[in-house]
Protein backbone atom coordinates (compact mmCIF):
# COMPACT_ATOMS: atom_id res chain seq x y z
CA UNK A 1 0.00 0.00 0.00
CA UNK A 2 1.24 3.47 -0.83
CA UNK A 3 0.83 5.35 2.44
CA UNK A 4 1.25 8.77 0.88
CA UNK A 5 -1.47 8.22 -1.69
CA UNK A 6 -3.68 6.70 0.94
CA UNK A 7 -3.34 9.82 3.08
CA UNK A 8 -3.73 12.19 0.14
CA UNK A 9 -6.96 10.51 -0.92
CA UNK A 10 -8.75 12.21 1.98
CA UNK A 11 -10.22 9.02 3.35
CA UNK A 12 -8.72 9.60 6.80
CA UNK A 13 -10.52 12.92 7.19
CA UNK A 14 -13.75 11.22 6.27
CA UNK A 15 -12.97 8.52 8.81
CA UNK A 16 -12.52 11.02 11.65
CA UNK A 17 -15.73 12.76 10.64
CA UNK A 18 -17.52 9.41 10.62
CA UNK A 19 -18.78 9.96 7.10
CA UNK A 20 -17.72 6.64 5.64
CA UNK A 21 -19.94 3.61 5.36
CA UNK A 22 -19.73 1.14 8.22
CA UNK A 23 -17.69 -1.21 6.07
CA UNK A 24 -15.14 1.40 4.98
CA UNK A 25 -14.96 2.73 8.51
CA UNK A 26 -13.89 -0.69 9.74
CA UNK A 27 -11.42 -1.16 6.94
CA UNK A 28 -9.74 2.14 7.70
CA UNK A 29 -9.66 1.29 11.42
CA UNK A 30 -7.82 -1.90 10.55
CA UNK A 31 -5.37 -0.02 8.32
CA UNK A 32 -4.65 2.48 11.08
CA UNK A 33 -3.86 -0.30 13.50
CA UNK A 34 -1.39 -1.69 10.97
CA UNK A 35 0.42 1.45 9.80
CA UNK A 36 1.79 3.90 12.38
CA UNK A 37 2.07 6.67 9.75
CA UNK A 38 -1.68 6.54 9.32
CA UNK A 39 -2.24 6.65 13.07
CA UNK A 40 -0.04 9.74 13.25
CA UNK A 41 -1.99 11.45 10.50
CA UNK A 42 -5.27 10.53 12.17
CA UNK A 43 -4.05 12.11 15.42
CA UNK A 44 -3.24 15.36 13.61
CA UNK A 45 -6.67 15.41 11.98
CA UNK A 46 -8.36 14.71 15.29
CA UNK A 47 -6.47 17.57 16.90
CA UNK A 48 -7.69 19.90 14.17
CA UNK A 49 -11.28 18.78 14.58
CA UNK A 50 -10.98 19.28 18.30
CA UNK A 51 -9.64 22.81 17.86
CA UNK A 52 -12.42 23.51 15.42
CA UNK A 53 -14.96 22.23 17.95
CA UNK A 54 -13.34 24.33 20.67
CA UNK A 55 -13.52 27.41 18.49
CA UNK A 56 -17.28 26.89 18.34
CA UNK A 57 -17.77 26.14 22.05
CA UNK A 58 -20.85 27.56 23.66
CA UNK A 59 -21.53 27.58 27.40
CA UNK A 60 -24.79 25.74 28.18
CA UNK A 61 -27.09 27.30 30.81
CA UNK A 62 -25.82 26.77 34.36
CA UNK A 63 -28.79 24.75 35.59
CA UNK A 64 -28.26 22.09 32.96
CA UNK A 65 -25.36 20.49 34.81
CA UNK A 66 -27.50 19.46 37.79
CA UNK A 67 -30.25 18.20 35.52
CA UNK A 68 -27.87 16.03 33.55
CA UNK A 69 -26.19 14.67 36.66
CA UNK A 70 -29.58 13.65 38.07
CA UNK A 71 -30.32 11.89 34.79
CA UNK A 72 -26.93 10.24 34.56
CA UNK A 73 -26.94 9.13 38.18
CA UNK A 74 -30.22 7.32 37.62
CA UNK A 75 -28.96 5.34 34.74
CA UNK A 76 -25.99 3.63 36.27
CA UNK A 77 -25.79 0.67 34.00
CA UNK A 78 -25.24 -2.86 35.13
CA UNK A 79 -21.91 -4.16 34.05
CA UNK A 80 -22.53 -5.72 30.69
CA UNK A 81 -19.03 -6.92 30.17
CA UNK A 82 -19.57 -10.66 30.13
CA UNK A 83 -16.44 -12.71 30.03
CA UNK A 84 -16.15 -14.24 26.63
CA UNK A 85 -15.39 -17.90 26.92
CA UNK A 86 -14.17 -19.15 23.59
CA UNK A 87 -15.28 -22.61 22.72
CA UNK A 88 -12.36 -24.90 22.46
CA UNK A 89 -12.67 -27.80 20.17
CA UNK A 90 -10.33 -30.51 21.19
CA UNK A 91 -8.40 -32.17 18.45
CA UNK A 92 -9.06 -35.76 19.22
CA UNK A 93 -8.15 -37.49 16.07
CA UNK A 94 -4.74 -37.64 14.54
CA UNK A 95 -4.49 -35.98 11.18
CA UNK A 96 -3.96 -38.49 8.50
CA UNK A 97 -1.53 -37.57 5.75
CA UNK A 98 -4.37 -36.95 3.30
CA UNK A 99 -5.89 -34.52 5.70
CA UNK A 100 -2.55 -32.79 6.09
CA UNK A 101 -2.14 -32.55 2.33
CA UNK A 102 -5.58 -30.97 1.95
CA UNK A 103 -4.76 -28.47 4.65
CA UNK A 104 -1.45 -27.52 3.08
CA UNK A 105 -3.05 -27.08 -0.32
CA UNK A 106 -5.85 -25.03 1.13
CA UNK A 107 -3.55 -22.79 3.16
CA UNK A 108 -1.35 -22.25 0.12
CA UNK A 109 -4.28 -21.33 -2.02
CA UNK A 110 -5.64 -18.88 0.56
CA UNK A 111 -2.22 -17.26 0.84
CA UNK A 112 -1.80 -16.84 -2.90
CA UNK A 113 -5.29 -15.45 -3.16
CA UNK A 114 -4.62 -13.03 -0.38
CA UNK A 115 -1.42 -11.80 -2.01
CA UNK A 116 -3.15 -11.33 -5.35
CA UNK A 117 -6.07 -9.61 -3.70
CA UNK A 118 -3.96 -7.16 -1.77
CA UNK A 119 -1.92 -6.34 -4.85
CA UNK A 120 -5.08 -5.59 -6.72
CA UNK A 121 -6.29 -3.42 -3.88
CA UNK A 122 -3.12 -1.37 -3.90
CA UNK A 123 -3.41 -0.63 -7.58
CA UNK A 124 -7.02 0.34 -7.17
CA UNK A 125 -6.25 2.73 -4.34
CA UNK A 126 -3.49 4.38 -6.34
CA UNK A 127 -5.89 4.74 -9.25
CA UNK A 128 -8.52 6.37 -7.11
CA UNK A 129 -6.04 8.89 -5.73
CA UNK A 130 -4.76 9.83 -9.17
CA UNK A 131 -8.28 10.13 -10.48
CA UNK A 132 -9.28 12.44 -7.65
CA UNK A 133 -6.30 14.65 -8.37
CA UNK A 134 -7.23 14.76 -12.03
CA UNK A 135 -10.81 15.67 -11.11
CA UNK A 136 -9.65 18.66 -9.09
CA UNK A 137 -7.32 19.86 -11.82
CA UNK A 138 -9.94 19.40 -14.47
CA UNK A 139 -12.33 21.41 -12.39
CA UNK A 140 -9.89 24.28 -11.94
CA UNK A 141 -9.09 24.29 -15.62
CA UNK A 142 -12.77 24.35 -16.56
CA UNK A 143 -13.36 27.30 -14.23
CA UNK A 144 -10.50 29.20 -15.79
CA UNK A 145 -11.74 28.42 -19.26
CA UNK A 146 -15.30 29.58 -18.59
CA UNK A 147 -13.99 32.72 -16.97
CA UNK A 148 -11.86 33.61 -19.98
CA UNK A 149 -14.63 32.71 -22.37
CA UNK A 150 -17.12 34.82 -20.47
CA UNK A 151 -14.84 37.83 -20.57
CA UNK A 152 -14.24 37.38 -24.27
CA UNK A 153 -17.98 37.17 -24.90
CA UNK A 154 -18.66 40.26 -22.87
CA UNK A 155 -15.94 42.19 -24.67
CA UNK A 156 -17.52 41.22 -27.97
CA UNK A 157 -21.04 42.11 -26.83
CA UNK A 158 -21.85 45.55 -28.21
CA UNK A 159 -24.60 46.09 -25.62
CA UNK A 160 -22.01 45.64 -22.91
CA UNK A 161 -20.01 48.60 -21.69
CA UNK A 162 -16.48 47.92 -20.51
CA UNK A 163 -15.40 50.13 -17.64
CA UNK A 164 -11.77 49.73 -16.70
CA UNK A 165 -11.07 50.91 -13.18
CA UNK A 166 -7.57 52.33 -12.73
CA UNK A 167 -5.44 52.71 -9.65
CA UNK A 168 -6.05 55.77 -7.51
CA UNK A 169 -2.87 55.22 -5.53
CA UNK A 170 0.22 56.43 -7.41
CA UNK A 171 2.88 53.79 -7.76
CA UNK A 172 0.44 50.91 -7.30
CA UNK A 173 -0.53 49.35 -10.60
CA UNK A 174 -3.96 48.01 -9.74
CA UNK A 175 -6.88 47.41 -12.03
CA UNK A 176 -10.29 45.83 -12.25
CA UNK A 177 -12.95 45.83 -14.92
CA UNK A 178 -16.72 46.10 -14.80
CA UNK A 179 -18.73 44.80 -17.72
CA UNK A 180 -22.05 46.58 -17.63
CA UNK A 181 -25.15 45.97 -19.62
CA UNK A 182 -27.02 49.26 -19.47
CA UNK A 183 -30.21 47.82 -20.91
CA UNK A 184 -30.91 45.16 -18.33
CA UNK A 185 -28.71 46.51 -15.52
CA UNK A 186 -26.50 43.41 -15.24
CA UNK A 187 -22.97 44.10 -14.13
CA UNK A 188 -20.00 41.74 -13.92
CA UNK A 189 -16.73 42.27 -12.17
CA UNK A 190 -13.32 40.93 -13.15
CA UNK A 191 -10.44 41.67 -10.84
CA UNK A 192 -7.06 41.75 -12.53
CA UNK A 193 -4.56 43.29 -10.19
CA UNK A 194 -5.75 43.78 -6.68
CA UNK A 195 -3.51 42.83 -3.77
CA UNK A 196 -4.89 40.54 -1.06
CA UNK A 197 -6.18 42.80 1.74
CA UNK A 198 -4.72 42.58 5.23
CA UNK A 199 -6.50 40.55 7.87
CA UNK A 200 -9.78 42.12 8.90
CA UNK A 201 -10.06 44.13 5.67
CA UNK A 202 -12.21 43.61 2.62
CA UNK A 203 -12.81 45.30 -0.67
CA UNK A 204 -16.14 46.94 -1.28
CA UNK A 205 -17.71 47.66 -4.65
CA UNK A 206 -19.40 50.99 -5.36
CA UNK A 207 -21.34 52.67 -8.11
CA UNK A 208 -21.39 56.45 -8.15
CA UNK A 209 -24.93 57.63 -8.81
CA UNK A 210 -25.73 61.35 -8.95
CA UNK A 211 -22.38 62.07 -7.35
CA UNK A 212 -23.04 59.74 -4.40
CA UNK A 213 -21.39 56.37 -3.81
CA UNK A 214 -23.87 53.49 -3.51
CA UNK A 215 -22.60 50.21 -2.09
CA UNK A 216 -22.88 47.13 -4.27
CA UNK A 217 -21.58 44.73 -1.64
CA UNK A 218 -18.32 43.56 -0.19
CA UNK A 219 -16.01 41.28 -2.12
CA UNK A 220 -15.10 38.03 -0.47
CA UNK A 221 -11.33 37.75 -0.27
CA UNK A 222 -11.24 34.26 -1.72
CA UNK A 223 -12.38 35.66 -5.05
CA UNK A 224 -9.00 37.31 -5.39
CA UNK A 225 -7.19 34.01 -5.44
CA UNK A 226 -8.58 32.74 -8.71
CA UNK A 227 -9.40 34.58 -11.90
CA UNK A 228 -13.17 34.77 -11.79
CA UNK A 229 -15.85 36.88 -13.32
CA UNK A 230 -18.46 37.68 -10.71
CA UNK A 231 -21.96 38.86 -11.29
CA UNK A 232 -22.63 41.85 -9.09
CA UNK A 233 -25.61 41.40 -6.80
CA UNK A 234 -27.36 44.59 -7.83
CA UNK A 235 -28.95 45.89 -10.98
CA UNK A 236 -27.35 49.11 -12.10
CA UNK A 237 -29.60 51.28 -14.21
CA UNK A 238 -27.52 54.43 -14.16
CA UNK A 239 -24.25 55.71 -12.83
CA UNK A 240 -21.24 57.86 -13.57
CA UNK A 241 -18.46 55.65 -12.26
CA UNK A 242 -17.58 52.33 -10.64
CA UNK A 243 -15.08 52.09 -7.81
CA UNK A 244 -13.56 49.65 -5.36
CA UNK A 245 -12.40 50.72 -1.95
CA UNK A 246 -10.68 49.01 0.95
CA UNK A 247 -12.84 48.78 4.06
CA UNK A 248 -13.03 46.94 7.34
CA UNK A 249 -14.46 43.43 7.14
CA UNK A 250 -18.16 43.58 6.39
CA UNK A 251 -17.96 46.93 4.66
CA UNK A 252 -18.84 50.55 5.46
CA UNK A 253 -21.76 52.82 4.54
CA UNK A 254 -19.39 55.19 2.70
CA UNK A 255 -16.02 54.46 1.09
CA UNK A 256 -12.89 55.21 3.13
CA UNK A 257 -9.97 54.45 0.87
CA UNK A 258 -10.69 54.20 -2.83
CA UNK A 259 -8.26 51.88 -4.62
CA UNK A 260 -9.51 51.84 -8.18
CA UNK A 261 -12.01 53.95 -10.06
CA UNK A 262 -13.34 53.96 -13.59
CA UNK A 263 -15.58 56.61 -15.13
CA UNK A 264 -18.45 55.44 -17.30
CA UNK A 265 -18.03 57.18 -20.60
Amino acid sequence: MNIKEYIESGILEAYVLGSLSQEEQERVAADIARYPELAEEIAAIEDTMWLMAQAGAEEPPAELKGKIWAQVDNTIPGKISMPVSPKTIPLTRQLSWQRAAVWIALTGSVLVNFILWSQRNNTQEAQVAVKAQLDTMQHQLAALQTSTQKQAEMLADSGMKTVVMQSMLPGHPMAATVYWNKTNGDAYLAMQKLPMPDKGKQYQMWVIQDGKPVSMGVIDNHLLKTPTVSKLPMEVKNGQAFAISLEKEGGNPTPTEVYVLGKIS
Partner: protein
Amino acid sequence: MPATNTYSEEELVLLLQQRSEAAFNYLYQNYAAVLYGIVRKTIFDEQTAQDVLQEAFVKIWNNIDKYDPQKGRIYTWMINITRNAAIDKLRSKGEVMKSKIRTGEEIVNNIGQSLKTEQVTDTIGLRQVVGGLEPGYKAIVELAYFKGFTLDEISKTLDIPLGTVKTRMRHAIKLLREHFKQ
Protein backbone atom coordinates in the same frame (compact mmCIF):
# COMPACT_ATOMS: atom_id res chain seq x y z
CA MET B 1 -12.06 26.23 40.72
CA PRO B 2 -10.64 22.75 40.44
CA ALA B 3 -9.71 23.48 36.87
CA THR B 4 -6.08 22.76 37.61
CA ASN B 5 -6.80 19.04 37.53
CA THR B 6 -6.00 17.79 34.11
CA TYR B 7 -5.99 14.16 33.19
CA SER B 8 -4.41 12.28 30.37
CA GLU B 9 -6.66 10.39 27.97
CA GLU B 10 -6.10 7.10 29.77
CA GLU B 11 -6.74 8.65 33.16
CA LEU B 12 -9.92 10.23 31.95
CA VAL B 13 -11.21 6.91 30.63
CA LEU B 14 -10.40 5.21 33.93
CA LEU B 15 -12.03 8.01 35.83
CA LEU B 16 -15.18 7.78 33.75
CA GLN B 17 -15.34 4.05 34.21
CA GLN B 18 -15.63 4.63 37.96
CA ARG B 19 -18.75 6.70 37.30
CA SER B 20 -18.19 8.94 40.28
CA GLU B 21 -19.57 12.40 40.69
CA ALA B 22 -16.04 13.77 40.52
CA ALA B 23 -15.63 12.12 37.14
CA PHE B 24 -18.85 13.67 35.97
CA ASN B 25 -17.81 17.10 37.21
CA TYR B 26 -14.54 16.87 35.36
CA LEU B 27 -16.21 15.67 32.19
CA TYR B 28 -18.82 18.38 32.32
CA GLN B 29 -16.43 21.16 33.12
CA ASN B 30 -14.04 20.30 30.31
CA TYR B 31 -16.35 19.13 27.57
CA ALA B 32 -19.87 20.47 28.07
CA ALA B 33 -19.25 23.80 26.31
CA VAL B 34 -17.54 22.21 23.32
CA LEU B 35 -20.19 19.53 22.97
CA TYR B 36 -22.99 22.05 23.40
CA GLY B 37 -21.40 24.18 20.70
CA ILE B 38 -21.53 21.20 18.38
CA VAL B 39 -25.18 20.53 19.14
CA ARG B 40 -26.07 24.16 18.58
CA LYS B 41 -24.43 24.16 15.15
CA THR B 42 -26.93 21.52 14.15
CA ILE B 43 -29.96 22.39 16.28
CA PHE B 44 -30.97 25.97 16.57
CA ASP B 45 -33.70 25.63 19.19
CA GLU B 46 -32.10 26.02 22.61
CA GLN B 47 -34.46 23.77 24.54
CA THR B 48 -34.03 20.95 22.03
CA ALA B 49 -30.28 21.50 22.03
CA GLN B 50 -30.18 21.11 25.81
CA ASP B 51 -32.17 17.88 25.60
CA VAL B 52 -29.72 16.58 23.02
CA LEU B 53 -26.72 17.49 25.17
CA GLN B 54 -28.32 15.59 28.03
CA GLU B 55 -28.88 12.54 25.82
CA ALA B 56 -25.31 12.71 24.63
CA PHE B 57 -23.94 12.82 28.16
CA VAL B 58 -26.04 9.83 29.18
CA LYS B 59 -24.75 7.93 26.15
CA ILE B 60 -21.14 8.79 26.89
CA TRP B 61 -21.64 7.83 30.51
CA ASN B 62 -23.27 4.51 29.75
CA ASN B 63 -21.04 3.48 26.91
CA ILE B 64 -17.62 4.40 28.18
CA ASP B 65 -16.75 0.70 28.30
CA LYS B 66 -17.29 0.53 24.56
CA TYR B 67 -14.80 3.28 23.80
CA ASP B 68 -11.86 1.79 21.92
CA PRO B 69 -8.65 3.84 22.17
CA GLN B 70 -7.34 2.01 19.10
CA LYS B 71 -9.90 3.76 16.94
CA GLY B 72 -9.23 7.31 18.01
CA ARG B 73 -9.09 9.86 20.77
CA ILE B 74 -11.64 10.02 23.54
CA TYR B 75 -12.77 13.48 22.50
CA THR B 76 -13.36 12.42 18.91
CA TRP B 77 -15.49 9.62 20.28
CA MET B 78 -17.46 12.01 22.47
CA ILE B 79 -17.85 14.52 19.66
CA ASN B 80 -19.14 11.81 17.36
CA ILE B 81 -21.67 10.58 19.94
CA THR B 82 -22.87 14.13 20.43
CA ARG B 83 -23.00 14.87 16.73
CA ASN B 84 -24.95 11.71 16.05
CA ALA B 85 -27.41 12.48 18.85
CA ALA B 86 -27.97 15.92 17.32
CA ILE B 87 -28.32 14.57 13.80
CA ASP B 88 -30.73 11.85 14.95
CA LYS B 89 -32.87 14.50 16.58
CA LEU B 90 -32.72 16.65 13.49
CA ARG B 91 -33.73 13.80 11.22
CA SER B 92 -36.43 12.55 13.55
CA LYS B 93 -37.95 16.00 13.42
CA GLY B 94 -37.75 15.91 9.66
CA GLU B 95 -35.97 19.19 9.70
CA VAL B 96 -32.85 18.32 7.84
CA MET B 97 -34.20 19.40 4.50
CA LYS B 98 -35.98 22.48 5.78
CA SER B 99 -32.63 23.64 6.95
CA LYS B 100 -33.55 26.91 8.57
CA ILE B 101 -30.94 25.79 10.99
CA ARG B 102 -28.07 28.18 10.64
CA THR B 103 -25.82 26.79 7.99
CA GLY B 104 -27.28 24.12 5.75
CA GLU B 105 -29.14 25.80 2.95
CA GLU B 106 -26.89 28.79 2.83
CA ILE B 107 -23.90 26.51 2.46
CA VAL B 108 -25.44 24.52 -0.32
CA ASN B 109 -26.38 27.71 -2.12
CA ASN B 110 -22.96 29.16 -1.73
CA ILE B 111 -21.22 26.12 -3.06
CA GLY B 112 -23.59 26.09 -5.99
CA GLN B 113 -22.55 29.61 -6.73
CA SER B 114 -18.89 29.21 -6.15
CA LEU B 115 -18.79 26.39 -8.64
CA LYS B 116 -20.08 28.66 -11.34
CA THR B 117 -18.01 31.47 -12.70
CA GLU B 118 -20.66 34.05 -12.12
CA GLN B 119 -20.18 34.63 -8.47
CA VAL B 120 -22.21 36.91 -6.33
CA THR B 121 -20.01 39.24 -4.34
CA ASP B 122 -22.59 39.99 -1.71
CA THR B 123 -21.13 37.49 0.68
CA ILE B 124 -21.55 39.06 4.10
CA GLY B 125 -23.06 35.75 5.24
CA LEU B 126 -19.75 34.03 4.66
CA ARG B 127 -18.08 35.36 7.78
CA GLN B 128 -15.14 33.28 8.59
CA VAL B 129 -16.32 30.99 11.33
CA VAL B 130 -13.49 28.56 11.32
CA GLY B 131 -10.85 30.24 9.25
CA GLY B 132 -10.35 31.44 5.75
CA LEU B 133 -11.96 28.49 4.03
CA GLU B 134 -13.40 28.86 0.62
CA PRO B 135 -17.11 28.11 0.65
CA GLY B 136 -16.69 25.12 -1.62
CA TYR B 137 -14.43 23.50 0.91
CA LYS B 138 -16.22 24.71 3.97
CA ALA B 139 -19.50 23.28 2.75
CA ILE B 140 -18.06 19.81 2.58
CA VAL B 141 -16.63 19.92 6.09
CA GLU B 142 -19.76 21.43 7.53
CA LEU B 143 -22.12 19.04 5.80
CA ALA B 144 -20.06 16.14 7.07
CA TYR B 145 -19.40 17.52 10.50
CA PHE B 146 -22.59 19.24 11.45
CA LYS B 147 -25.18 17.61 9.26
CA GLY B 148 -23.88 14.07 9.37
CA PHE B 149 -23.90 13.61 5.62
CA THR B 150 -21.98 10.64 4.28
CA LEU B 151 -19.51 11.22 1.45
CA ASP B 152 -22.03 9.77 -0.97
CA GLU B 153 -24.74 12.14 0.19
CA ILE B 154 -22.39 15.11 -0.05
CA SER B 155 -21.39 14.09 -3.53
CA LYS B 156 -25.04 13.91 -4.57
CA THR B 157 -26.17 17.04 -2.73
CA LEU B 158 -23.44 19.24 -4.12
CA ASP B 159 -23.26 17.40 -7.40
CA ILE B 160 -19.52 16.86 -7.38
CA PRO B 161 -17.65 13.58 -7.88
CA LEU B 162 -16.91 11.45 -4.85
CA GLY B 163 -13.14 11.64 -5.40
CA THR B 164 -13.33 15.42 -5.41
CA VAL B 165 -15.35 15.42 -2.19
CA LYS B 166 -12.59 13.43 -0.52
CA THR B 167 -9.68 15.51 -1.77
CA ARG B 168 -11.47 18.73 -0.94
CA MET B 169 -12.22 17.43 2.52
CA ARG B 170 -8.53 16.75 2.95
CA HIS B 171 -7.59 20.14 1.58
CA ALA B 172 -10.08 21.89 3.86
CA ILE B 173 -8.83 20.20 6.99
CA LYS B 174 -5.27 20.89 5.93
CA LEU B 175 -6.09 24.59 5.71
CA LEU B 176 -7.76 24.46 9.09
CA ARG B 177 -4.70 22.77 10.47
CA GLU B 178 -2.50 25.58 9.27
CA HIS B 179 -4.99 28.10 10.52
CA PHE B 180 -4.92 26.69 14.03
CA LYS B 181 -1.15 26.39 14.04
CA GLN B 182 -0.77 30.16 13.87
